[in-house]
Structures are given as structure tokens and as C-alpha cells.
């Protein structure tokens, strides 16, 4: 009888460029990753903090509902403020998840394997958070259904030529597909939890959620195909969503907004901010749950290179905006950009430029790319910088349009800041609840990169290594 060649002719998808030398077998994967599901004091403390922030945000929103939108910092004609800025910010955060899970999957980028689950969950919760802001922004949230574009008898005809309606379709499609993508990927892992669970109630819930998944070759075959096609359609979706969000601005004639560079500029910025948030989340997780040998320095190094690349794309877009204003010769545009960088809004513009364009250049240093503390601190500055990028896009344009008599200023109030803080509380509350119920690292995909147990010796079985964070970049 002919024997099968155990080295597959084409690699398993997740195996390219990544190995986990300190992970010996499948059982270790299950034991160590599911150990992160046990609640700890630090987790309860973090949840309490998140819920406190959320409570502050809810209180401020209730106050705004009671008093009216006047308590927010709107100052005509600046009628888009912190709520729209924060909406765009959270939509942007939501981009890295599908980028990492779909686009990097298609490109066979192995470093995605251990971080994509956290990034996908982050996407879903970020888009959920973003979805709240148009409702908060309208001031009368009980009439939010007026935003839904369906034919009705209120003389609010659905206007399909409006970018705002495009946005409704783009964001809701993105939320649906991201949630589907996350859940489909979770099914085999929920089956693992079901088979380990001793509590009958939890076991019944997990059995229901796993849809009776049995790990048959047949199930895996269709699963892999479906996952591939979901990744294939999610890829253009990622690019389209923030393009459509950018149309909200670019379709207007307002100085600073009416430019064709906005779609790629927004997409690159969204991916950049999303990767920043992935670092913010994944670095504490790998430390607190002892998962450093899963999310290794090699993974962080590779993700940091992607962060550097997107930072440079964003930096290039900033420069091109200035160039277009200068070369286009439109006085209003030139005046606006001067006011943005050296005038009224210089402080916001320089926070943006420093955090998004200058500080990430440190990632050219291999040593800093492999320093989790530096990456985490940098990710915080990226989050701040990307919020300010949206501030710089929204506020300076509206406060400095064509007519000088319209020029004004804008200052957010405590209500704006409280609701912004509440959005972080809302986001982290969901994320913390997620990581205590479901595996934050994909069990089945990690098992794909762990060498299987063999009767005959595996040609490429690595030695079990304790130094899974080698000083030598690229080791293992």
C-alpha cells in the first residue's frame, strides 16, 4: 500500500511564516487559551472601570435628552461636532478587524493567526459603538427610525442619491458581515468549549451555539470554502465602507472636504487606527493571560510593520492635501489649510501630525517594533492622533467656510466629553465580556500551525523552546 506524503504540497493557510515553538500539541492549545476564560480580579476591575465610564456617558446623554442639544458644544455653522467625529473614529477602529481576518487571510499572512479573533471582536463592538452616534447626534433619539430609508407617509422620501443613505447601507452591511464572519469562525471553537464544559446549563448553551459541530472532514471542507469566500467579499467591503463614509464629506463643496483623495485617505487612516487599537488590546491580553508564546514578538513585529506602512500612507495623504490646496490655486482652500496648520486649529493639527505621522516613524527601529511596552504606548498616541484627525477634518472646515462672516469657533462641552468617555466604556465592556465567554485566540487556526502528533518523525518538528521571545528577530 502506498503511503501518503505527510508534508502537504501546499501549506495549510495559517502556516505561512509563523511557528509557535513553545506550543507542543493541540491539548496545550486548548488548555492554555481556554484558561483565559476564567475571571480574575484584574478582569473584574477592568469591567467595573468600563461600566463606570459607560454610566458617566449614559448620564450625560440623559441630561442632553432632557435639556436639548444646546448643552453639546454645537456653534452654528459647526453643526457636526464630537458625535460625528467619534462616529467616524469608531468606524475606523472597526476596519482593522476585517482587514486582519479577511485581507491578511487572502494574502496568507501567518502573523494574523493569533491576533485576528481579538481584532474581529473589536470590529464588531467598534461598529456597534459607532452606530450609537448618529442616534445621539440627532438629539431626539426616539425619532431615530426616521433615519431608516424606507418609503413612508411622512414626506421623508428615501433619497438614494444622498451619501448619508449610502452610509446607512454601508455601515449596516459591514456590521452584519463582520458579525457573521466572527460567528462563523467561532463555531468550531465553541464546539471545543462545549466538549470541555462540565456545567450542564452552560454545556446546553454552548451546544446550541455550536450548532452540533462535530469536527468532521466534511464540515471542515465546506467551512474552509465558506470562510474563503466570506474573506473574498469582505475585502472589497472593508475598502468600500470607509470610502462611503468619506463621501459624507467629499460630496460637499466645503473647503477641505471636496477632494477626490478622501476615499483612499480615509481607508488608510481607518486601517491605521484599527491596528493601533489592536495593539492597545492585544498587548495587555498576551501579558495578563500568559499568552506571550502565542502572540509572540515576531507577530507584533510583523503587525508593527503594517502599522508603519499605513502610517506612511496616511502621512502621504496629509502632504498631498496640502499640495492640492497649494497647486489648485483656490483661495478658500489655501486659506483653510493655512488656518488648519498655523491658525485657529494649529494645536489639533499638530497633535494629529505628531501622533500619526512622526511618532510611528520610530517603528523603523527593529528594537522598538519588538518592544511591547513601546508599541502599547505608541498605540495610545495613535488612538489619540486618529481621533484628532477626524476633529481636524470636521471642525476646521465647518468653522472656516467661504463666507468670513460665518467664521466661528467650536469648543466641546463636558457633555460631549462624557459621551465620548462613555463610548469607550461601552466598547470595552462588550470586549471584556467577550473575552470571558469565548476564546480570544482562535483555537482551530492555532492548531493548524502546531505540528500534528505523528507516528513517523516530522521533518520540520521544531525543538520545544522556552525562549519564545528571542532577541534575534525572525528566529523561529
Amino acid at each position, binding site marked *: 500500500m502506498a503511503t501518503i506524503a505527510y508534508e502537504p504540497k501546499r501549506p495549510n493557510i495559517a502556516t505561512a511564516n509563523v511557528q509557535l515553538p513553545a506550543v507542543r500539541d493541540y491539548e496545550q492549545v486548548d488548555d492554555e487559551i481556554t484558561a483565559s476564560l476564567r475571571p480574575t480580579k484584574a478582569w473584574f476591575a477592568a469591567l467595573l472601570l468600563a461600566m463606570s465610564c459607560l454610566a458617566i456617558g449614559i448620564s450625560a446623554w440623559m441630561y442632553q435628552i432632557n435639556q436639548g442639544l444646546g448643552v453639546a458644544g454645537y456653534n452654528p455653522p459647526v453643526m457636526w461636532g464630537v458625535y460625528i467625529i467619534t462616529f467616524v473614529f469608531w468606524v475606523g477602529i472597526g476596519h482593522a478587524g476585517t482587514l486582519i481576518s479577511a485581507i491578511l487571510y487572502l494574502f496568507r499572512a501567518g502573523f494574523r493567526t493569533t491576533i485576528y479573533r481579538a481584532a474581529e471582536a473589536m470590529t464588531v463592538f467598534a461598529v456597534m459603538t459607532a452606530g450609537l452616534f448618529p442616534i445621539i447626534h440627532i438629539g431626539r433619539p426616539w425619532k431615530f427610525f426616521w433615519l431608516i430609508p424606507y418609503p413612508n407617509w411622512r414626506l421623508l422620501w428615501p433619497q438614494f442619491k444622498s451619501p448619508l443613505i449610502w452610509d446607512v447601507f454601508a455601515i449596516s452591511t459591514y456590521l452584519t458581515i463582520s458579525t457573521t464572519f466572527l460567528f462563523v469562525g467561532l463555531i468550531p471553537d465553541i464546539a471545543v468549549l462545549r466538549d470541555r464544559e462540565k456545567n450542564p446549563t452552560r454545556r446546553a448553551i454552548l451546544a446550541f451555539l455550536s450548532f452540533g459541530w*462535530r469536527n468532521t472532514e466534511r464540515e471542515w471542507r465546506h467551512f474552509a470554502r465558506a470562510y474563503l469566500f466570506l474573506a473574498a467579499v469582505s475585502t472589497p467591503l472593508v475598502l468600500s465602507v470607509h470610502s462611503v463614509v468619506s463621501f459624507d464629506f467629499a460630496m460637499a463643496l466645503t473647503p477641505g472636504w471636496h477632494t477626490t483623495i478622501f476615499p483612499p485617505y480615509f481607508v488608510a487612516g481607518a486601517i491605521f487606527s484599527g491596528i493601533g487599537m489592536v495593539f492597545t488590546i492585544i498587548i495587555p491580553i498576551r501579558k495578563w493571560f500568559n499568552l506571550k508564546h502565542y502572540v509572540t514578538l515576531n507577530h507584533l513585529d510583523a503587525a508593527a510593520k503594517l502599522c508603519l506602512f499605513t502610517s506612511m500612507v496616511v502621512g502621504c495623504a496629509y502632504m498631498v492635501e496640502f499640495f492640492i490646496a497649494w497647486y489648485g490655486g483656490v483661495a478658500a482652500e489655501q486659506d483653510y489649510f493655512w488656518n488648519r496648520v498655523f491658525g485657529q486649529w494649529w494645536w489639533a493639527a499638530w497633535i494629529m501630525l505628531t501622533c500619526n505621522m512622526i511618532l510611528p516613524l520610530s517603528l523603523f527601529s527593529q528594537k522598538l517594533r519588538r518592544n511591547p511596552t513601546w508599541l502599547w504606548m505608541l498605540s495610545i498616541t495613535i488612538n489619540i492622533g486618529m481621533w484628532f484627525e477626524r476633529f481636524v477634518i470636521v471642525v476646521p472646515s465647518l468653522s472656516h467656510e467661504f463666507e468670513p462672516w460665518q467664521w466661528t469657533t467650536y469648543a466641546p462641552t463636558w457633555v460631549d466629553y462624557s459621551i465620548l468617555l462613555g463610548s469607550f466604556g461601552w466598547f470595552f465592556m462588550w470586549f471584556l465580556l467577550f473575552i470571558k465567554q469565548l476564546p480570544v485566540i482562535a483555537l482551530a487556526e492555532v492548531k493548524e500551525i502546531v505540528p500534528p502528533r505523528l507516528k513517523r518523525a516530522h521533518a520540520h518538528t521544531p525543538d520545544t523552546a522556552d525562549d519564545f521571545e528571542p532577541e534575534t528577530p525572525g528566529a523561529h
Partner: protein
Amino acid sequence: MRGVLGHFKELDSAVDAITELKHKRLGDVTVFTPTPRHEFEAAVQPPTSPVRRYMLVGGLSGCIFGYWMAIWASNYWPLVVGGKAISTWIPYTVFGFEVFVLVGALSTVAGLFIHARIPRLTMTVGYDPRFSRGDYGIWVECTPEQFASAEALLKKHGAVEVRGER
């Protein structure tokens, strides 16, 4: 369903057993594996998954629906904006694309469910929780007369546990 379940610790043992089972045509083989492996695909030689067709049909239907929805609503509630035609295909491409992705992706998931035969109400015979953890399983659906030869074959290839189920 009656058959024999073999429980393997090693991947190559399970693959060898499948290859010989297929060669001897002892019965339908179902493989349980904690993670997808191309080695099993090579041994079982299954047909290509038809899930891609769901994507195609769902996506095209969604695209058509997206354009139709925008055009129909615009014509039914006509409102001239910016001197443009009532129905203009360029802005409506956004709806064509978004609904293409939405329906296409949901159809793909439906295809996965249909062909992977999930949701499944019971685990049926031939499943063991160890197969989601790290071990491999081979379920051979055969008649009681074939039990002995199937068991012998599975044991020969290194099954650590073999049991008949009915």
C-alpha cells in the same frame, strides 16, 4: 447507523487507515479532526465544495435587488436632486455593491449550513469529545458482518481504541 469507530492519536496513522479503508471499500468513512488537514483531504478525496455557487447566485441576486430597490423607490417617489435624472445608475452602484456583499455572504453561510448539515440536533453515533481536543477519529459505517475486518484494520494502523456502535 451502524459501524465501527476508531480513535487515533497520530495523524499519519489515521491517514494510513483511511487510505486502506478506501482501498478495501469497507464502508462509508467519516473522519473527525480537531483542525482541517490537507492530508485527510488527500486521503478521502472528496468532491469540491459547492458553497461557491451560493456565493455566486446570492451575490448576483443581491446586486440586482440593490439596483432595483433604488430605481423603483426613486421612480415611485420621484424627487429631482441637483438637476440629475430621477434614476441614475452611478450613485446606485453603492446599493448594488452593498447588497451584493450582504446577500452573497449570507447565502455562503447558508450553503455552509446546508452542506455541512448543521445545525444538528443530536451528535448521533460515532462522535467523541476527544475529537475536538486533539485526537482523530474514523467512523466506518458498515454491516455487522464487516465489523471484525474493520476493527482489525483500524487496530493494525494504530487505533488506540476501537468500538462498534449501533
